[in-house]
């Protein structure tokens, strides 16, 4: 740098300023929309814009009425229960199957690994409308359309790629000799798994599970095709709301979902931090 000419330094400084400005704008573009929703959800008026009172920070212009509406609304409550039940069940299935598969795939002896991996990841890249339409035909035939089971299976299969990917990532560089060593010391496969592999992959398992849960908690198309009135989830309820009558109640729910996202993100990042500070596992 010391050899650089003055004009280079100048243009570099301008360039850097422009670069920072562009990045700032892009980051605002990324984050601002979600932040706008939060104050608006406290709007005392049924509008989606800042009223003059809100801009004056007049306390009368703010209210909790939309939150009250959500908390008291039987439909939102049913939707929340459904979202949790479906999310937890789908996550449990996805995590169990996903972890096992990731362990299998991490084994160098696994035949056809590339093909199997892309098969297992395919639910994540297939356009959702196609998956949902196919499931509508097939699950109707099986008699599990319009049941919780149908939606849970759909969400489970959408969640498995997340588990497979995050667990596989933590297994990269895992020394299979440890398994052999454990086994040679007389540990059964289950004991070896619990004592050697599980502690190592736990952060991956938990992040994968959180991803799967978040995916289920946000999924609406499969619910549209496979769910009836009794399977209404929070996103499904929002969908109708957005398409038909945007009540500020939706903004209250949206604020809740933003908080949930922050919690999930915080947890995953925290886990990642822990995983990468472990000795011998430099991310």
């Amino acid at each position, binding site marked *: *740098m010391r*050899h650089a000419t003055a004009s280079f330094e100048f243009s570099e400084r301008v360039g850097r300023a422009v*670069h920072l400005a*562009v*990045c700032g704008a*892009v*980051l605002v573009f*990324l*984050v601002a*929309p*979600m932040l706008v*929703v939060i104050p*608006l959800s406290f709007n005392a008026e049924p509008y*989606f*814009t*800042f009223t003059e009172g809100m801009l004056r920070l007049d306390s009368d212009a703010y209210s909790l009425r939309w939150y009250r509406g959500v908390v008291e609304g039987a439909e939102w409550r049913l939707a929340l229960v459904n979202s949790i039940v479906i999310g937890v069940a789908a996550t449990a*299935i996805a995590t169990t*199957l*996903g972890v*096992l*598969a990731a362990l*299998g795939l991490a*084994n160098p*002896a*696994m035949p056809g690994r590339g093909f*199997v991996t*892309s*098969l*297992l990841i*395919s*639910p994540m890249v*297939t*356009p*959702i*409308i*196609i*998956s949902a*339409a*196919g499931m509508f*035909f*097939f699950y109707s035939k099986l008699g599990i359309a319009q049941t919780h089971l149908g939606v849970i299976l759909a969400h*489970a*299969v959408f969640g*498995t790629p997340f588990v497979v*990917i995050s667990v*596989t*990532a933590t297994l990269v560089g895992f020394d299979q000799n440890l398994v052999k060593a454990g086994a040679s010391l007389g540990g059964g496969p289950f004991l070896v798994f619990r004592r050697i592999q599980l502690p190592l992959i736990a952060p991956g398992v938990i992040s994968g599970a959180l991803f799967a849960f*978040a995916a289920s908690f*946000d999924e609406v198309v499969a619910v549209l095709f496979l769910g009836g009135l009794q399977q209404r989830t929070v*996103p499904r309820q*929002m*969908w109708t709301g*957005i398409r038909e009558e*945007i009540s500020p109640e939706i*903004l209250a729910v*949206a604020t809740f979902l*933003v908080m949930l*996202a922050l919690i999930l*993100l915080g947890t995953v*990042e925290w886990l990642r931090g822990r995983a990468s500070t472990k000795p011998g596992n430099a991310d």
Partner: protein
Amino acid sequence: MARPLRGARLRAVALTLPLVAFVAVTFIAPLGSMLVRSFYEPHVADALPRTLAALRAWDGSSVPSEDTFRILATELRWLDEQRKLGAVATRVNRLESGMRSTIMDTADALSSAEPGSWREAMIARDPIWEEPSAWLAVRRAGERYTMRHYLNALDLDRDPSGNIVAQSPDRRIYLPLLLRTLGVSLAITIICLILGYPVAYLIANASPARSNLLLLLVLVPFWTSLLVRTTSWIVLLQNQGVVNDLLVAAGVIGEDGRLALVYNMVGTLVAMTQVLLPFMILPLYAVMRSISPTYLRAASSLGATFRQGFVRVYWPQSLPGVAAGSLLVFILSIGYYITPALVGGRTGQLISNMIAYHMQESLNWGLAAALGVILLVTVMSLYLVYNRLVGIERMRLS
């Protein structure tokens, strides 16, 4: 050595098998049943077996025999009594517009008649029965295995003699929509690259603490519900929304010059770009993080301007990230449904929305399936390219 290897292999397969079986049943089989729907259509064939048998001997250009008329009339009447005619008529109508009312009317008129000549009675009711096109429509609707949904999905049709021809101009909608979808996806990919590249560069070259903070800003939208983000855009962009209010307050536009920013293509583009941007930034960042800044420094110490250094040294090294991010964004946007459905209005719809329309509203499931298969093949080929170039195993979530 052979035995432990076989044991390891068996164990690996046994661990993977449950998920493979699960995916096969809950995911692959549904896709298969959609594939079958796209070319197998037994409904009319099952409903009009004798008419179709009689039409097999028909030359396809003359008016069919009295016998054929009688058989069709009998079958139509029976279906009408069973309240099953509507579904059949609807399917014939998809091949020849107007046939639904013709069939329903004819069955109604014949419900209690015992005419001397069925042929005359039916033609008297609706002269279209004199046209071979009506009978061709019935015959084609009765094909159990058919390519017509694919032809339809590609804006093609068959003329009376069976040649494949272009659909009449006012019914050509699917190919333009497919092209529009590809165009929109490409546009979004490019916009995401232009917006995402500088940000990824910034994050990759910042101090660890700041880089973590910036990454969080990228990850927050990534984790936030898609519906929330879409709602936000409606709130921001609508006529009386925040953006228009700001523009009016700033005097850029007048009160009656408010811009239409949502429920059209603009809404689709803006919202999808924001939704997909993290999928561009994260792979770019992952690659850029591994590019050592010493290369650029070396370039500048050799007298290269920043631009030269960037173009010759940095950009080529970041290309794997560009490819990964672009492919990912492109693949995801081709299949997008929710965002266009909510903010796209009439002009911002993509191919997925048309599939949803045929699934849920027109109930032309065969056509929906054919469009779905075409979309699926497109996406899967890109997925294979992605897999080749990037490697699915290297896909990271955070």
